[in-house]
């Protein structure tokens, strides 16, 4: 099941054939749920209420052609990943928006930069995911004991506090990547003061501009081959957190529009 989304305020989306950015919302919801459903579809719905103009770069995501689609079915993540793979073969840049990190687990094919607030084994085998390719785990501030001990030693861990206070350490870690990376952003990397995106809130996350700067550093460093936005599973419809999710997508699109992508 697919549903073409009217992604954004009063603007219209580009088609699959002429877009550069493919936004794929892996949804359990049905098409009629737009405006009511939680999770990725709530983020998609909220995008109709933000201005699709990126002030920092002075461009709109529509400048590069943005195609948005809600992907459903029995296994929406699998379907979204297949669609993202197709997008990449067409020279497009895919971003999957998903409930949780199963999206990253199945979508990432390059070295990984994970902007995650927590690490566990709840949704995906995250430690295995982190060990699959060279990886940076940044913004983290909580983990289950087992998960933390199981993180491979090859993973560069940069805590939220370090990312906030010593961002050059993050820049230095990024400089070791020579090729574009897979960027995974979990909304839980943000401080709960910025967005309350789950029922398991951890204090001490990134500010809004802290996250924006971190994303920009990845684009300006190794570049980004593909991305996902996860941790939206408990984001309700018409909530500030849904708007924050849309704003993250807008920033990603703005950086792509500015030509900073990999």
């Amino acid at each position: 099941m697919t549903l073409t989304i009217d992604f954004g305020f009063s603007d219209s989306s580009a088609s699959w054939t002429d877009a550069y950015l493919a936004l794929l919302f892996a949804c359990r919801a049905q098409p009629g749920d737009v405006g009511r459903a939680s999770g990725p579809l709530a983020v998609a719905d909220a995008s109709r209420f933000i201005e699709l103009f990126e002030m920092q770069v002075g461009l709109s995501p529509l400048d590069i052609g943005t195609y948005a689609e809600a992907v459903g079915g029995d296994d929406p993540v699998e379907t979204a990943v297949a669609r993202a793979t197709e997008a990449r073969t067409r020279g497009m840049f895919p971003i999957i928006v998903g409930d949780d990190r199963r999206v990253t687990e199945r979508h990432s094919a390059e070295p990984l930069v994970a902007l995650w607030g927590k690490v566990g084994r709840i949704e995906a085998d995250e430690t295995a995911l982190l060990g699959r390719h060279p990886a940076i785990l940044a913004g983290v501030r909580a983990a289950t004991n087992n998960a933390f001990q199981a993180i491979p030693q090859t993973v560069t861990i940069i805590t939220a506090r370090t990312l906030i206070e010593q961002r050059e350490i993050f820049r230095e870690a990024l400089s070791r990547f020579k090729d574009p990376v897979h960027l995974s952003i979990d909304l839980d990397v943000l401080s709960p003061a910025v967005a309350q995106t789950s029922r398991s809130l951890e204090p001490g996350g990134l500010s809004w501009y802290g996250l924006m700067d971190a994303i920009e550093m990845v684009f300006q460093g190794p570049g980004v081959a593909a991305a996902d936005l996860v941790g939206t599973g408990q984001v309700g419809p018409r909530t500030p957190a849904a708007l924050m999710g849309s704003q993250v997508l807008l920033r990603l699109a703005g950086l792509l529009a500015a030509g900073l992508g990999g």
Partner: protein
Amino acid sequence: MSDAPANLGIVALPFEVSTSFRKGTSQGPEAILEEFDRLDHFDFRLGRDPFRGVPRTIVKPHGPEIIDPRIEQAVAGRVAGELLDNGGFPISLGGEHTVSLGPVRAARTRGELGVVQLDAHSDLRDAYEGNPLSHACVMRRVLDMDCRTLGLGIRSMCREEADLIARRGLDVVPAREITAGRDWWRLVDGLPERVYLTVDLDYFDPADVPAVGTPEPGGPAWDETLAFLEHLFSTKNVVAADIVELMPGPGDESSLRLAVRLLGFITGLRFPRAG
């Protein structure tokens, strides 16, 4: 800065038609006035109770049943005009942001006027969804009144608005620059002596004010805003003001409290020798 006005007029304007993402701003004025009655008003920054010794009237010229913005603006404008003519200082409480238009017009017809806008959105669309009197167009309509404007804390706009800002050389300070320093304070110098202050509460960071219709991340904070307001009121004759777009609801008491404290701080700045 001019002499203090004779009295304070708090004008409740619970008008809401064009808000889009979430609704509820029509309940803003009543919630603010109820909280106003509950609170002590001593302000540590001012060092006094800003309302003490200030003659004040509370005016409720219409209820939420009005749905025609032209009628709303006429009614609100008449009330603001009467307050101004009697030497008063009107502070309007919204309601959606379009409630500013009546009072701004009332102030503009009485002399040259600058408008300082604290807002997350530039609100400069010529029309939104075909409606030129949408909350997304309020500052465009202010420009139509030949007012010089200064937009502060802006972090969301469409291309049409960005083009207008560039073409007309409008003064707009993005939210991040507000926090980065005070160089932008000099933009106040370019405004006329008489100034109208409009505060859309979504100007503030949603961490401080979550109860707004369309929250935008990355807004300025409370103390840096008060510091600017002190500068504004000390250098210009602020003739009227409004606080709009509060969307009160359970669990969002911090937003309501901030709105009342802002009402008090503005009053304190405008009536410096009271108390």
